[in-house]
């Protein structure tokens, strides 16, 4: 005790007073923090609980795969056995919670060529064996749904008539404005051509008037570019300048 007193005596007066002040401050802070403040003020559970509640209360946009079949049983049954069985309805039709609450608001139904290629356009990074097509060459302009039923897609049987032998012409034609015109619109193919292709040949158009049926000024076809047969290159046949399987776009 005497020794302790000696140590205290050695500390200068002003430091001793300072120590007392510091001790008072520390005790003050500790009592306020741990005894006076209610624990709910420092407890994190409450603000966490409110965050969880706020998060839980958010709106649901996608209704989930199991509900659509209740009303659309036909489509659900069809889809269940097809190649698209792993797809949820909302993958293609978009979020449908609004549609459930109010059936008058319809979800989207993609009909064009833009949507299917998200998955089915060729991409070297896609897993091998996943069905992919080249959207430029694969029946251009036509909508996918004309050949493939989206609820039960099957690899469609390609009509390979002329293209079985004339593949080069066929593939050039698919990217041309003439893509949707069948071979037989311009060529008359005798049945024997398929048996003896070299001796019996299909016909070819012979006159300028044949092209004029679509491209002449008087023609009523809306989508074909028009020329005046009398003044447009009257000394030449059409195919001497324009290649009919891939005519240039105007």
């Amino acid at each position: 005790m005497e020794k302790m007193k000696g140590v205290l005596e050695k500390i200068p007066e002003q430091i001793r007073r300072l120590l007392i002040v510091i001790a008072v401050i520390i005790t003050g802070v500790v009592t306020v923090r741990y005894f006076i403040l209610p624990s709910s003020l420092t407890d994190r559970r409450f603000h966490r609980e409110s965050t969880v509640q706020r998060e839980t209360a958010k709106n649901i946009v996608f209704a989930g795969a199991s509900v659509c079949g209740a009303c659309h049983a036909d489509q659900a049954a069809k889809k269940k056995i097809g190649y698209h069985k792993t797809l949820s309805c909302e993958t293609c039709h978009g979020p449908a919670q609004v549609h459930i609450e109010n059936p008058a608001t319809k979800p989207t139904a993609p009909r064009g060529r833009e949507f299917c290629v998200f998955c089915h356009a060729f991409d070297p990074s896609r897993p091998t064996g996943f069905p992919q097509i080249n959207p430029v060459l694969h029946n251009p302009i036509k909508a996918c749904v004309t050949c493939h039923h989206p609820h039960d897609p099957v690899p469609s049987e390609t009509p390979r008539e002329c293209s079985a032998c004339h593949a080069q012409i066929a593939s050039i034609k698919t990217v041309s404005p003439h893509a949707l015109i069948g071979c037989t619109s311009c060529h008359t193919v005798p049945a024997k051509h398929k048996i003896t292709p070299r001796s019996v040949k299909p016909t070819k158009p012979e006159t300028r008037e044949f092209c004029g049926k679509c491209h002449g000024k008087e023609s009523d076809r809306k989508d074909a570019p028009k020329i005046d047969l009398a003044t447009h290159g009257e000394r030449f046949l059409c195919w001497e300048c324009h290649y009919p399987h891939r005519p240039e776009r105007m």
Partner: protein
Amino acid sequence: MDRRKFLKNAIWFIPAAGLFRRFLKDAYAKPGNGRYDPNHHLYGMGIDIDKCIGCGLCIEACKKENNVPKEPFFCRTWVERYVIRKDGSVTVESIEAQKGKPRAKPEETDILRSFFVPKLCNQCANPPCVQVCPVGATFPTEDGVVLVDSKRCIGCRYCIQACPYGARYLHPETRTADKCTFCYHRVVKGLLPACVEVCPTQARVFGDLKSMASRLVRFTRMNKIHVLKPHLNTEPKVYYADLDGEVR
């Protein structure tokens, strides 16, 4: 009432009161039973890289479900295309950032391997973002999801810097940090997260790690599982099957 009668009645009354109390307890407990208890769940996601076709529908669905800005810069989930060339060079690009532009597809001849890797918040069990938050605005819930309290967040971006997976972004409207929540508002109601819902090839598998019957537990049992950056000891809850060594 004499003492004898009182004691006799008490013999009956005490056990009867006990029973009555028990009935009362049962009656009140019943509505509570159907309520969601976060302690009984632990959510995780499995990703089957071999199944991802990089269609980007998950990104779009996530943006619709969670009000994420449409610009490709903001994503709660995104898909990376890895291209490993024969000379050993690796390119990684987000397919979302390329959207609208003509896709620069790699030349087929010099590809060694190429695949898509969907990414999202890994909902770490040891989340670095929670450690660095100066205001305690981000925290893990009992069911294993890391949430952000947008009312407490001050938008200091510490967590965005700290996340080793780059899963966070600053929401331009609220000016607070935002990230994948596994669609918390959906999963507590028994629905799947939006990205899992729309995935056409089921490359994403969502489930409860505490339930042996869940699809995720089966997925982790049937596949060889990796997590991203395991050396950081963040203990992610997003499990990748067939993860390539080049993926970081």
